[in-house]
Each structure stands twice: as C-alpha cells, then as structure tokens.
C-alpha cells in the first residue's frame, strides 16, 4: 500500500512536471546582427534580452547572427522554425530583414516579438495577430523630432536618410509633424560613411536646421564631418545616432544635440533603475535604447508565460496584448495593431564626467501611437 502511494505520488509529480515542462517552457529563436557593421545594435538587443530572461529557467534561447543580410536571416528563421522548433522569434534590427522574415514566421503560427524594426508595412495592411512590436513603429521617433522642430521654431529643414524602408518611414514621419518648409530632401546609400556631398548641399540649401536619420556607424561619420564643416546649424534626429554605443565614437561633436527617444537612462521608475544598474553590473557598460528594447521584450514574454501556456496560442496572445509588465519606459501598452502607445522624449547629449550620455529635456509626444492603426484589419 505504501509502495502504491509512493508510486502514485511519483507518477503524479512526474506527469505534473511533464505537463509543466510542456506547457511552460518556451523556446526562443533570436536572429540579430552580431558581426560586421551595425553589430553593436544587435549585441545590445541580445544582452538586454538575456539580462531580462537570465533567471527564468523555462526559457531557452538560440541566438544566431544574420550578418545584416536578408537572405541569411530568412535561412536562419526557416531552420529555427523547422528543425529547432522554436515557439517565438525575435531579435531583428533592420527593417529590410524584418520584411523578409516576419510575414513568413507569423503565417507559420509562430509569435514574432520585434525588439527594434517596425516598418510601416507591418503596422498597417500587413499587420498580423502573431506580430508584436515592443520598440516603436519606425515613424514614431521621427514624428517626435518633427514636433520638436516646430517647438524650436525651425522653419526650413534639410532632411536626409538612407534609401531603405526605415529611411523612407523616417522622412515620412518627420514631414508628418513638421510644419515648416523643406530646404532639401536627400536619400543616401545604406551603409554610406562619407557625407561630403550631402554636407555641401546642406551648405548651399539655405536651411535653418538639419534632420537626419542615419543609424549605426553611418551617423558617426555624418556628425563628425558636419561639425568639421563649420556649418553652424542646429541638428535634430532620432536617438539612433546618439545611443550609448555610438556617442563614444562621435566624441564632442555630438554635445548639445537634441534627439528623440522612447527611452533614456534617466527615466525615473523602479524598473528602469533596476535595469540600468543590473546591465552595468553584468556587462560593464551603460545600456543603450536597443538594450532597453531587448530587455522589455524579454519581460513582456515572461509576463505572458506566467499567465498562459504557449501552446494555447489564443490565450497567450491575449496575455501578450495586455502588456502586463513593468517596462523600463514606465507607461506602456499596445495599440490595436500591436505597436506601442508610449511617451517619446526629447533628449540632449551631455557630458557626465568624461562620459558622453543623454538626459531628458522634455516630453516630445505623450501617449503616442501610430497612424497605421486604422489600416490594420485584425
């Protein structure tokens, strides 16, 4: 009898734990840029995400490098879905890669949580119930920059961005909010590093301000060359050219520049303080906005896992939609097209001792969503 009870008890425990294992374990495939130009962004997203899920035993993460190439990203996604059997994909930095990977992923019944890229196509007509963007819709930070340009009294802006989906979203976003005229509008080559030609055009254009979106290493070259050119125009841009990974390389040329971001290390809430200090302790450097996006993505996943099993996709999706986690950005919720509603801040580049970093000067747009919500039938 005693034997029987122990056996039964053991059975119960075993079956319980196997149910537990089946239902609560989540396999995450992270495809991000870890080598070549722009790898700083992917590394920050990965590190932020890993920090968030570090103590969660139910999450396994497979990380692979897409080398910023769409074809490689697609191969990796296929492999992760078909042979590694992941439940959730995440990690992609670049919009052109996201456009190549996300539609196929969500159509195969997997969740995709975007920690960065938010192309307009995936927010409007191409929205999908399994696609969540935890960062922003691409236009958002640029819209805030346009709004800031109005309040700063700019009347005649010269605007430039690389010729790829996110670059077009950027200029569209700026123009949507900016009320002044355009002194010039230029698309540069993706990956371009030398902006002598564009800077000469800015000089000749008679602009009173410059707006630029040049993510990663592209912005370093622009800021340095612009400050050396002796043109004394105010510059405004999204945070991507002024994040923590890049400021060091830009140097003092960035001092005083206003940039717009949904996150900053001085946002005053408990989650953010914990994130900044833990990130510094773990990796020995200050986090960037990319790291905060990776971290929030991890926390969002955990929040849904604690309420629902991943196999019950409808319930899990509902839990994701609630966004019931403490974001490093403070207030955070999803709009109907699964893109964030959040505050966008205006920051200024300052020096803290010897380190260049950002501080918030004002709230650019409050509870900001995106214009593509109405196009999304979900």
């Amino acid at each position, binding site marked *: 009898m005693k034997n029987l009870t122990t056996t039964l008890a053991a059975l119960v425990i075993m079956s319980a734990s196997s149910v537990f294992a089946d239902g609560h374990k989540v396999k995450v495939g992270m495809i991000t840029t870890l080598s070549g130009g722009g*790898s700083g962004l992917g590394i920050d997203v990965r590190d932020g995400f890993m920090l968030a899920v570090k103590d969660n035993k139910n999450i396994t993460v497979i990380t692979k490098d897409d080398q910023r190439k769409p074809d490689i990203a697609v191969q990796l996604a296929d492999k992760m879905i078909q042979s590694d059997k992941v439940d959730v994909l995440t990690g992609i930095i670049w919009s052109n890669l996201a456009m190549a990977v996300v539609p196929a992923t969500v159509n195969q019944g997997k969740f995709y949580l975007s920690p960065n890229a938010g192309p307009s196509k995936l927010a409007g007509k191409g929205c999908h119930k399994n696609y969540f963007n935890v960062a922003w819709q691409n236009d958002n930070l640029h819209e805030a920059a346009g709004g800031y340009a109005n309040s700063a009294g700019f009347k005649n802006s010269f605007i430039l961005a690389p010729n790829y989906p996110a670059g077009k979203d950027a200029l569209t976003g700026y123009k949507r909010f900016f009320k002044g005229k355009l002194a010039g509008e230029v698309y540069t080559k993706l990956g371009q590093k030398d902006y002598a*030609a564009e800077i000469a055009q800015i000089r000749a254009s008679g602009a009173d301000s410059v707006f630029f979106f040049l993510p990663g290493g592209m912005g370093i*070259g622009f800021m340095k060359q612009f400050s*050396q050119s*002796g043109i004394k125009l105010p510059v405004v841009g999204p945070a991507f050219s002024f994040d923590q990974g890049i400021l060091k390389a830009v140097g003092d040329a960035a001092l005083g520049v206003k940039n717009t971001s949904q996150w900053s290390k001085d946002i005053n809430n408990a989650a953010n303080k914990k994130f900044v200090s833990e990130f510094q302790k773990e990796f020995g450097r200050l986090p960037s906005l990319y790291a905060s996006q990776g971290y929030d993505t991890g926390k969002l996943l955990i929040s849904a896992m604690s309420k629902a099993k991943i196999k019950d996709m409808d319930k899990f999706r509902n839990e994701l939609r609630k966004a019931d986690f403490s974001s490093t950005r403070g207030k955070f919720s999803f709009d109907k097209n699964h893109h964030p509603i959040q505050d966008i801040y205006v920051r200024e580049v300052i020096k803290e001792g010897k380190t260049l970093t950002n501080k918030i000067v004002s709230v650019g747009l409050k509870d900001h969503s995106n214009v593509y919500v109405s196009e999304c039938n979900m």
Partner: protein
Amino acid sequence: MTFILFFEQLLNGMQFGIMLFLMSAGLTLIFGVMGLINLAHGSFYMIGAFCAALIAGLTGSFWLALLASLIGAAIAGVLIEIIIIRRLYRRDHLDQVLATFALILLLSEGVRWIFGAFPLYLNIPNILNGSIPLFFDIIYSKYRLFIILIGFLIAAGLYLLITKTRLGIRIRAGQNDRQMISALGVDISKLYTIVFAIGAGLAGLAGAMIGAIQSVEVGMGEPILILAFVVIVIGGIGSIKGAFIGSILVGVTDTIGRVFLPNFLKIFMESANATSMGSSIGSMLIYILMALILIMKPSGLFGKN
C-alpha cells in the same frame, strides 16, 4: 551658387578618388606582380584604422597614429604574406579567392575579439579642423584638402619608386615575366613580400585617414574593397597610372552622380520619387561607367593588350 556647389562636389569627388587610389594602388600592384587576387586587402584598411585609433588613444597624437597605421598594416601584411599568402601564388584564382575570403573573416573576428564590436573614436587634429575659404567664396574642409595633398604626394612617390629605383625596375620586370626575373637571380620571394607590405601599408594609411572622419569599426574595409576592384578593372589590371586615373574617375562620377541626378530627375517627376530614384541610379553609375569602358577597352584604360 550652382557653380560653387559643383566645384565643391568636384573636390569631394577628388578626395574620394584619392582615397580609392590608396586602396587600389596596392591591390593592382599585388595583382600585377604576383598575379594574386587579394580579397583581404580591405582588412588592411581596417587594421590600419584600428592601429591608428589605438595609438591615438594612447599618445593623443594624430601624426603618430598615422605613422602607426602605415607601419602596423605593413607589418600585418608581411606576417600574413609569409604565413599564408606565399602558398597561394602558384594556385589558381579560385583558391586565392577562397583563401583570402577566409582571411577577411578571420581578421574581422580577430579585430572584434580584441577591440569589441562598438566603433572606436579617432578624430582629426585641431590644426586640420574646420574649413578654409578657397577662391570664389568656396569654403572647403581643411582635412579633405589634406587627404588630397597626401594622395598626390603618394602618387608621385609611387611614380618615382617604379620608374627611377632599382626596386621599381624589379617590380616592372616582375609584372612582365615572373620566371625570367627569378632566373636572373633576383630574390623573388623577398620582392613579393616587399610589394605586399607596400600595398598593405597604403591601405592601412587610407583606413586611418578615412577612419578619422568616418568611423573606425569592424568590417569597414569591405565596401571600399569592392570599389577598389572596380577601379583596377577600369584602369587596367597591374597599372598604377590606370589605378590613379580610374580612382579619380570613379570618385568624381560617384559624387557628382549622387548629387546631381536626383536634382536632374526633379525636372521630370515629383520630388520624393526623384530623390529616391535618383539616388538609386546614382549608386549604379560607376558600374555603368565600368561597363562602358570595358565595352570600348576590354582590358581597361591602361591594361596590357
């Protein structure tokens, strides 16, 4: 107004061309003398920039940093030539492409392993900061003028080296007939190492000079490498003169095309489309130029037969 803009863009094109010349001079020499396709040439550009950033960080001197880029990349060139490249001269081009491509991956990962994935800081010295007025109200960056000047000096130096010195005679002889020159008692493997070191050193110098106004990061050499190949194909493989003319041609075409094509297209279509389409066509221009030149002169402007 338009003339000033045009002239400034012409200078920008020159400066871009000069930098391409520093890359392609080495590439074309190495191909001309040793018959080696060296895809890893862009890695020396990167190594030079990182050496410069390292030395500038330690000493604070830009001039020492420039020197370090030249020497550092040349030393890396010598080591790599002796350890790896030397075994490739007798192999066919496919083997060379595979091996030097592997070198790119190894060197990039190696540099990232040492310096990390984030871009490094390297800035120009104060004396070259800012712009100076030239003539007709044209204001131009001092540093870019400096790059143009250095480029012309190096072009002149290479010309003297190849036409007036004993080493130059050997290099030219090596280009013409590799077997004969070694039969005449010239230590061919030493000559190869020297040529390789010169090529690597020039690439490293270019990397440091450009790194100071762009960014010093892993993988910075590969986009330039592709253009350098375009240059040597246009100029004729093995010809320094061809590399010089080809570089300036590519630099100016690229810059002028990128700037004026969108404006030109605005005459026919609405602004946003013209900008986007103009910059797309602008980035194709140099390849169209290459195709046109190859149709007329299949071995390039100054190529042998």
